[in-house]
């Protein structure tokens, strides 16, 4: 989906006579609005459910591992920093550093997913997953809490995965000279997308891990 945006932006470039970086950025921001509303639906569901089940959400939050959550937050925040550094590098025509920092961002994104994988695996191991036997024994509010936890962190994880793919593509484009110091709006847009993924996580952390 963000590929489509990016290609659209690139497409405008490919015509040669028409290039509009401001337009490409505007398109990306509008796309980010749709992403925010997409998560917004889930945040709405979260607020309503938390209003219904305040105590159970507290109980549920206590069963999540705050340490892993915080480590993942640090990883994502750092990855946003490296993303910005890669933009600074491309603006200064330092292609090596641009590639290095985009590469670092990709690696940090993967590290986030690996962590998340361990966390989910541990939950599954304890029989905590939607429609499991163990889940059915929990109070309704806790079932909802974990359903929301899996849905929202899962959707976020999908976005991290998409971000990693886009950034890998950006990396190859820098290497092939398609993103250059005077034509890097694609990298900028990929960065915007990555920051959105980061921002969503900033909200997920307190809503789930720190809810207790």
């Amino acid at each position, binding site marked *: 989906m963000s590929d489509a*945006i990016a*290609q659209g932006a690139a497409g*405008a470039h490919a015509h040669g006579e028409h290039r509009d970086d401001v337009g490409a950025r505007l398109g990306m921001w509008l796309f980010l609005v749709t992403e925010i509303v*997409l998560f917004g639906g889930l945040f709405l569901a979260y607020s309503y459910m938390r209003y219904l089940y305040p105590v159970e959400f507290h109980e549920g939050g206590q069963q999540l591992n705050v340490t892993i959550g915080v480590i993942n937050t640090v990883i994502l925040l750092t990855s946003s920093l490296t993303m910005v550094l890669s933009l600074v590098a491309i603006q200064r025509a330092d292609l090596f550093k641009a590639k290095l920092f985009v590469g670092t961002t990709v690696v940090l994104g993967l590290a986030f997913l690996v962590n998340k994988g361990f966390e989910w695996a541990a939950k599954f191991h304890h029989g905590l*997953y*939607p429609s499991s036997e163990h889940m059915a024994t929990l109070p309704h509010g806790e079932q909802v809490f974990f359903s929301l936890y899996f849905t929202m962190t899962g959707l976020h994880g999908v976005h991290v995965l998409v971000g990693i793919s886009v950034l890998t593509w950006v990396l190859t484009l820098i290497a092939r000279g398609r993103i250059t110091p005077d034509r890097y709006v694609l990298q900028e847009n990929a960065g915007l997308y990555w920051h959105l993924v980061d921002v969503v996580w900033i909200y997920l952390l307190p809503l789930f891990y720190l809810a207790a």
Partner: protein
Amino acid sequence: MTAVATTGHAEPSYLVDTGKRKGIAAWLTTTDHKRIALLYLYAMVVFFLVGMGIGVAMRLVQLHSLQHMMKPQTYNALFTLHGVIMIFLFVIPGVPAVFGNFLLPILIGAKDVAFPKLNLATWYFFMAGGIIAVAALFTGGGPPDTGWSFYAPFSVRTGTNVTLAVFGAFVLGFSSMLTGVNFITTIHRLRAPGMGWFRMPLFCWGLYATSWIQILATPIVAITLVLVILDRLFGVGLFDPSKGGDPLLYQHLFWIYSHPAVYIMILPAMGVISEVMPTFCKRPIFGYKAIAFSSLSIAGVGSLVWAHHMFTSGMSEFANMIFALLTMIVAIPSAIKVFNWTSTMYKGSIDFQPPLLYALTFIFLFCIGGLTGIMNGTLAINVHIHDTYFIVGHFHYVMFGGTGFGFFTALLYWFPKMFGKNYSKRWAYVAWVPMFIGFNMLYFTMLVLGLQGMPRRYWTHLPQFDTGHVVATVGSWFLATGLVLFFANFVWAIFKGSEAEDNPWGGVTLEWQIPSPPPVENFEEIPTITHGPYEFSKESHA
């Protein structure tokens, strides 16, 4: 209109293949907004005719002698399918994807939309979504039987193939959303020099307001549909009371999108009417800014009225009252438009042509749809008519009488420009007669049946409703006949129609200043705009 370059036919038209690829391959890989518009048009007419056929079949079942031509479960599948096809594949994308795509860049003096490749991608999303939705009929547990609104908890429990159908709707949402992103960027970035916001033709304002709703509302239904899929596949259960979930949450999330979607449907059609009225009255539109801002306020207020679909679902009295009040308020900007259109005609030199006839029909039918909408929004009446034929009649007046006739008006108005051919005006008039008679026989009767207590989505009915059902069914035959004549006229025109002039209606907006059909790049030279869109007095028109 302005300093537009010569209208000589030096450049080849967009219908002629000029690139490396020829024929079908050239069309399927095109990034030309005009060709993409036609791709949408062809697909939509097919979907529309299928949806219409299903509608006629549903009416036949209501004749007692033909009742046993299908089982109740088949009937359930048909009304679901009729709704899904008509709403997601025709009414929501109809006017913006076809006429918005074709005309938006031309009306603002641009060569294409901001993201041409993305534009083509949205067509593929549209086709993929449509094909997935249709595939849901023939695979899995059989055709979905939930109604187009996929209400939980039934939609997560029924054994029919809801998962695939819902996924199809999800993909269609992407198409709609990305089209919105594309149009807003186009309007912000690609207006010709001098084309200030208040020099844009009103169709562009309609599209602009629509695009914002597409961006702000569609993702909500996307996530809601994802939750239905997750529930069906993994038992996530956010809408399932046995797991602590809440079905009312589904209804809220669904209508947070699907009510604004009604304005996605109607605003571009209103924009079409705002173009047609000045052209055939040879007068500037009355109240340009009022119409422009009413589009935005419909988009704004219309986003806050969703729960009027849920007055009988068990919300609090207070919430009901708030949503009823907001529903009344949204009628104001709609009425402003109607008053402005009719005021435009006052003392105009009216040139009565087929597009004007259909535009006036739009206004007439939309008024009935709008006024019955006010009735629906009134709490006390709503309890009585909820889930009856009154609702069905009401939304057909708005969606079919409104958006459908807006689409037909647009086709009549811009067809000569799009294809460079003239259709038969006589047959456009002839088709109108059975359409108009049949439409009112079918849907006005539904309003009456609803008030008498006929529930919607029932395979059968009690004897006291017999007369009404017979009238409605006969009406559906008239309507279908009119529609077939209407579309046949255009098919005939594509093959046998005479060459259209560049400006057959004496319009003054930019599309009439370029050849019919337009050249690939639209304008040989980007025009410079020096005045508003509907100034007939400035220059004589042939």
